[in-house]
Structures are given as structure tokens and as C-alpha cells.
């Protein structure tokens, strides 16, 4: 069971990137994602799916995420999510895939 203890950021606001800010969430409060994207209409659902998938992979069930997306591809979203989770203390075991 993985929980976040501090506010963490990864990524940038550059084109094709996504900035992820994660904050602690109260136990059992679930996953809350606030998404801002310049391609929200076309890819909003896909972005949320990628974020959720990454959280599921690492067993994160309670987290608050703000994502500011500037057209990042799925692999970039996953990379920035993994960086944020790693910085928050969730060990990735050096094996990303």
C-alpha cells in the first residue's frame, strides 16, 4: 500500500510535456485528478486513463493530482508520473517496465 506524504512536482510547462503536482490525500479519500490540457477535447479521457493506469501499476489508491498538460504523449505522461511517484518515496526498483 503506497501513500504520498508530501507535495511533489515533476515535468514542465513546455510544449509536449506535462507538469504533475501530487499532494497527500487523506486515507481512503481515493484518487482525485484535476486535469488542465490544451488538447482536453481530443485526449482528455486518454490522459486520465494513462494517469490512472500508472497509479494502479504502483498500487497507489489515495492521491491528489494536478496535471497541466501541453500535448504530452502517453509515454511522457507515464514518465513524468513515475518521476513524481519516485520523488514522493514510492520505490520503482530500477525496473520501469
Amino acid at each position: 500500500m503506497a501513500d504520498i506524504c508530501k507535495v511533489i512536482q515533476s515535468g514542465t510547462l513546455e510544449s509536449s510535456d506535462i507538469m504533475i503536482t501530487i499532494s497527500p490525500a487523506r486515507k481512503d479519500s481515493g484518487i482525485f485528478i484535476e486535469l488542465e490540457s490544451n488538447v482536453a477535447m481530443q485526449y482528455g479521457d486518454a490522459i486520465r486513463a494513462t494517469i490512472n493506469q500508472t497509479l494502479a501499476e504502483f498500487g497507489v489508491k489515495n492521491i491528489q493530482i494536478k496535471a497541466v498538460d501541453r500535448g504530452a504523449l502517453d509515454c511522457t505522461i507515464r514518465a513524468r508520473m513515475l518521476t513524481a511517484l519516485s520523488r514522493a518515496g514510492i520505490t520503482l526498483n530500477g525496473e520501469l517496465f
Partner: protein
Amino acid sequence: MRNAIGRELPAHIEGYGHVRAFAGAFSPLPDMTRQAPRVKAARPGDCKLVNSLEEVFSRIPVRDGMTLSFHHHFRNGDGVVNQVLATASKLGIRDLTIALSSTFPVHAPMIDHIRSGVVTGLDTNYMSGPVADAVSRGILKKPVVLRTHGGRARAIECGQLKIDIAFIASPASDEYGNINGVEGPTACGSLGYAIPDAEYADCVVAVTDHLVEYPLSPVSIPQTRVDYIVKVDSIGDPKGIVSGTTRITKDPVGLKIADTAAKVIAASGLLKDGFSFQTGAGGASLAVAHFVRKMMEDREIKGSFALGGITGHMVEMLESGLFRKVIDVQGFDLEAVRSIKTNPNHIEVSAGFYASPFNSGCTVNQLDTVILGATEIDTDFNVNVVTGSTGVIMGGSGGHSDAAAGAKLTIVVANLLRGRLPIIMDKVLTATTPGETIDVLVTEHGVAVNPKREDLRDQLIVAGLPVRDILELKELAEKIAGKPKDIPTNDRVVAIVEYRDGTVIDVVRQTTDR
């Protein structure tokens, strides 16, 4: 009903009328004659100089329901439209149709005039900024009519667009109404887009901030067509008028695409003595011009003419002998203004001369090649330059459809993916230029050739260019980015996209997610 490229259109649109469906880029000419403006007489000693816009309004007189026209040679530095509309509002005039050849952010005050009922109709070739956003949201009851530059000239000349009063922002005018665009503090160069208005409007008003002694020369718009001259303090902001030097793109992917596009031109066999060329002023187009220029210099090619939309880059090519002539319908920077004023090989032409499909020959028909952009392109090669990625109006054909129809080789340059968005769709949201007039799409992942051009496809393959099927490129983009969801729209038509011949090639519907 469906038009020739398969777009679904209503047969009749409230506020527009009967819809003539697009039937192909070169469908038969309807039987028609040009329209004729009212005849005037001027007695010796009559004075045309009027002290203010308000006075001109009462002299004409301006009435409810009239169509007022304006040119866009001052682009985002225009001051005349706002001054005229402010005057109309002050005098309580309502229900005006504004026919301005392009609409920019500076025209934002028009939104208030629309809300208050002063303006109820808009007729234009390009829209960006707050007015475009407001129109997309449905602020006008009547749909906007979006035309091409050539189509607007045709509509004015043949009577589909009847102008009651043309307000011509004039960088220089004498007191009898001779106008040019090359003198004065707000000199803008060619006045090409104002000429059809001047020739066919029932009443023509020159609005100037630079009154000179009679007679002015050279004459772009003659005194015989000008009814009144109003002197105002300023017709616009010179800084907004010309954008300074327009720059070649620095984006490495854009440069790669431009380099490939130049190689396409070379492989087509068109790059030889007598070559003619048109490019827009955008960074990617300029980059293509840059690479083509190098090829011309290396191969010592003497071109015949460059056309446009003229920038300092084209002027340099003229002055270094790479082209014999420059044909200019609009100046984009101060270099273009300097050159047209002083160089007899730099020719001012009207919008009709440039691109109207209904005359005995417009210049785009003589073009070897044109480089164009796109916001979207579909697998039939139809191009969208009207709506952006969120379905909001952010452009318009301008000369896009005209040049595409006329040129021997029409090339669209575009990133296959802009940020995450694929540029190739199953169907573009708003068709502007029909696929039959588009020959090649050049992207960073390969070059797609219109199936109608087997000959060209073979040439490009032999030249070693990365030719791909357009479907293959679409699938590659979707593999990289994922398949995008469609933009939701409702049924309400907010703009009508007319092809250059006046038929309707598509409509813009209101986006729902606003």
C-alpha cells in the same frame, strides 16, 4: 444535401439564403454579367473634402441595413473600421453588414456593436481574435460569410456582394480622391484588396491621415471613383500595420519539412528558368522560400515572378535577379512598401487580377508552385484553414483556395503532429480548399501525393523522396499520439465557407463545449 466533396449542407440557411452546393473546383461558369454601380456627376468647383466621419454619414447618407466595406491592408493596426463603427453607433444607425476583407484582434470593439444591433452581418475572408471567438460562440444571428480573396473580388464584381459604401483607409490621398498606399506615415504598399470595392461600391469614401496637394501620383485608386475624402488624425498604428521583418521558422522539424518541400519542387521539374512561386508569410512558408532560393542560386535559375503576400525576402530575390518581377496584392513588411514604391518591376495588382475565378485570367493561373499551410487535412486531401483544433474559427481561406486551384504544383507543408494533435483526419472539421486542388502534403515523416498525380508521385520516388500513402501517415500519427476524439458541434450554422466561385464548400457549426 451533399456537395461534391461529401459535406452535408442545408439547402437553405436563415440569414444567407439558397445554398448553391460546391460542385468541383472548375465547375461550369454560370451565365452572368458584372453588376454596375450608380453613375455620379461632379460639377467643377464641387468640394469632396468632408470634415468628419459624422458629416460624411449625413452627406451620403448612411442608412440602416446598408453594407459597408473595408480592406485589411493595415492588418492588426487598422483604425478605420473601429472609427466608422463608432460613428455609426453614435448616430444610431443599425443593422449594418460589414464586409471587411479580413478581421483581426484590433476589431474587438465590433463585438459591442454586434450586441447593440449596430452590426448584424459580417462578410470576410479571414478571422482571428475576439471577434472570431464571439462568432464561433454564436453572437451573430446571421451566419458570417467566409470567402476567398479571389472570391470576394468575384462577388463584388458580379453582384453577389453589393457594397453600399466602401470606406477606403488611404495612406495618401489628394483632395479630389486620388489614392495610393506608398506615401505617408501609414504607407502599407499595395492596395490590391481595396480596388474591387472602389470600382463597384455605390459610394466610395477615402479616409486618410495624409492629405497631399492635387494631383497625387502614382494613382492606385482614381479620383473618378471616389466620392468623399475625410481626413482623420490616424487611420491606424504603423507598428501593427506591418509586422516588421517576418522571420523564418527556427523549429528544426519545420526546417526539415521546408527543406523536403524545396526538394519536391526540384524533383517536379518546375525549378528552371521562368519559374514562378507564391508563399505565405508564415515561418514555415518563408523557410521553403529560403531553401528554394538557395537552389535557384546554386543552379543559376532566373525565375519569372514571385506572387503574394510580399515580404522583404521576396524583395531581396527580386533585387538580386532571381525573379524578373514581383506581383503584389498585399505588403507584409516595410521592405515590400519600399520596393513597390521605387521598383517598376514590383507590380501592384487588384484582388481580382490576383485570384478571381470569373475573369479572363487571374495570376494564380500562371503560378508554377505555391506553398500553403493547413490546420487539418483529410485522406481526400481536403484542407481546413478555417477552424482550429477546438473547432473555433481562427483563420479563413484568404488566398489559399485560389492559389491551390491555379498553381501547377500545390504543396501543403505541415507537422504530422502539432504537439499531440495529428494533422491528418478522416474528415476535416471544416473543408476550405478541396482535395482535387492539393497535390502534395509534406510532413516530417514523409510526403503524401494526391492519387490523381501518378506522374508526380513517380518523379518524387525517383528523386529518392520519402513518399508515403496518406493513410499510412495518418496511422503513424495515431500510433504515436493515440486517436483523437471528435470535436462536438451542434446544428447551428455560425459561418458559411464559400468556395471562390460562390458555391458553398462547407459550413462552420457552433461548438458545444464552450
